[in-house]
């Protein structure tokens, strides 16, 4: 699904991602853990196509295509989804038309016909209630004046609707209370299946109790310093990053 080889990325001439490699296969869920400033968001933003990042060297293949040749929206339509650590507020952009435009953009790019209005409304309502998102919230502008937790749940709603092949979740658990954490995890597990892949970025082992990873990687200073299975997260929780530096 996603194969990154020897990737180095810099921001403002400063190298942040250093010789990073990973191979995420179809059906796999990888967790990336790492201290503040280690480059987790930089990696996700870079993969999504955000401007301001320079490729130093390396290769990124997504569904056997050179991801870096595509622009932001092409990547998304190909099946990449990034749940943001800090979702942007869009005052005046109403949620429902926005979601409809997004899903129809994807359908059109696959030469499929646009979603039926009724079917769409039904689908949104169902996903929203699954994620404890009220109808009132669906009437508002995208992320505008949402609480931190609401923003995160709303990212999961979008992910569920767009049904991506690869989802990158950047600290979707941070700022969530314990009930919201359970809801979000439930939402992620609902989307997860043997045909798609996920990269879950988190600081806390706790999330991985609900979303069980196939692999855990520890990212320090732009490099993976250790990889393992879910036990690595437990070990990390006990020992802290110190021991991996």
């Amino acid at each position, binding site marked *: 699904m996603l194969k990154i080889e020897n990737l180095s990325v810099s921001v403002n001439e400063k190298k942040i991602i250093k010789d990073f490699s990973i191979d995420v296969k179809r059906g796999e869920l990888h967790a990336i853990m790492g201290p503040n400033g280690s480059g987790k968001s930089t990696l996700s933003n870079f993969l999504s196509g955000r*401007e301001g990042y320079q490729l130093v060297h390396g290769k990124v293949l997504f569904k056997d295509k050179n991801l870096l040749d595509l622009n932001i*929206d092409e990547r998304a339509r190909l099946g990449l989804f990034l749940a943001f650590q800090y979702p942007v507020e869009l005052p005046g952009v109403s949620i429902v038309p926005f979601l409809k435009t*997004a899903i129809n953009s994807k359908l059109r790019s696959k030469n499929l016909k646009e979603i039926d209005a009724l079917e769409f409304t039904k689908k949104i309502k169902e996903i929203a209630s699954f994620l404890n998102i009220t109808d009132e919230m669906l009437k508002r502008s995208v992320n505008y004046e949402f609480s931190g937790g609401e923003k995160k749940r709303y990212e999961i709603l979008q992910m569920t609707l767009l049904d991506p092949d690869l989802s990158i979740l950047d600290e979707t658990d941070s700022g969530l209370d314990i009930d919201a954490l359970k809801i979000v995890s439930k939402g992620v597990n609902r989307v997860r299946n043997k045909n798609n892949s996920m990269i879950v970025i988190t600081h806390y082992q706790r999330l991985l109790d609900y979303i069980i990873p196939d692999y855990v990687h520890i990212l320090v200073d732009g490099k993976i310093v250790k990889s393992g299975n879910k036990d690595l997260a437990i070990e990390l929780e006990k020992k802290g990053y110190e021991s991996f530096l």
Partner: protein
Amino acid sequence: MPEIEKLYNQNKKHLIGSEIPWLKEMRNNILKELESTGIPSKKKETWKYSDLKHVRNVKYVFDESGIKNERKDYFGDVNFINGKHISEIQEDHIKNIFIEKLESNIINFEKYFSINSNFLSQDFITDLNTIFLTDGLTLSVPNNVKTDLKITYSNNLNSISSYIRNIIKVGKNSEFQLIENFNKDNTEDNSSNVFNIFWLEEGAKVEHILIQNAQQSSKIAYSSLIFCYDNSDFEQFSFQCGSESVKNQHTTNLIGRRSSVKHYGVYFAKDAQFVDNKTTVIHHEQECKSNQIYKGVLSDESNGVYLSNTLVKPEAQKTEGYQLSRGMLLSEKSVLKTKPELKIYADDVKCSHGSTVGEIDREQLYYLQSRGINKKESEKLLIKAFTKDVLENMKNKESLNRIDEIIDDWLTE
């Protein structure tokens, strides 16, 4: 200036009210005044930022060959073609509103004509309107009714100049929606100068929607002068998208206690179009509220001007006044000049103003694109979002939908 006088002398006999002594005198005074001050130029404070196209090339054309009584699909309840009112409806009442030709009633209207010399003194645009008047109506909404009216302005000949004045009186506790549409038609080089005077009696509520979506080669100058008595409420939406040059000015006098006004504006311009709006609110009395909120989207080499003014007279205690101008520039060559002014002579007032000019927010654009929406489509969503909070206050949903369609067309062109 001699041209204006020449034009006047040549066409005197066609002008409305040419036989009325007070109007003749008023016109002569304006011409005399113009002779001593000269026509406006960039040196004059009020024209400093404005488009002088409205000053050069003043025209008056007498041609009634295009005036026919045929119903067009864009027609409203009351329609002007080539500057003349088409009276297809013989009744003098439309939807409860008493309507009369200004021409047949002008003799009684001296006070409404002298009004602009008191309230818009030496204003070139309304002075031209007084001199070259082609037509106009008096609309009178009785007390305690709820009604609405749609007026359209259009042309079916080229190079026509219209000078229209309407006097609109809204009776006590009545609710009135007035929609004015400047239509897009297949003509060239037309100019319109419309001047409407509104009187809101005690407790009257007016929603005034002005849609200026005329063809590219047209020039529009629109002036409104509003008087609000006690507890009355005037809400105006002014929307521009289309003409080569628009110059609007709206002046509200809050002369009754607890009266309020909202001047809302949304404008779009591209190519070398010029949109110039000015709003002024004068608080004469206590406990009045005013809002002046304009948002503009400019692309290519277009120009926008928005000047807002709040004047609080010494008697006007407990005033609340708010002014906001926001601009979105889609190109480096587009220019927006905005200037809020605030003059306060009372001590117990709450007034504020703000103004911002920016571009499409990159973070927001990125967010939308990251959801698979292409750049152009994402920009459209953000541009519409920018104007939404102003437009969504509009109660007349038909007009709101029409404006929405005009914006969609503008964004796809």
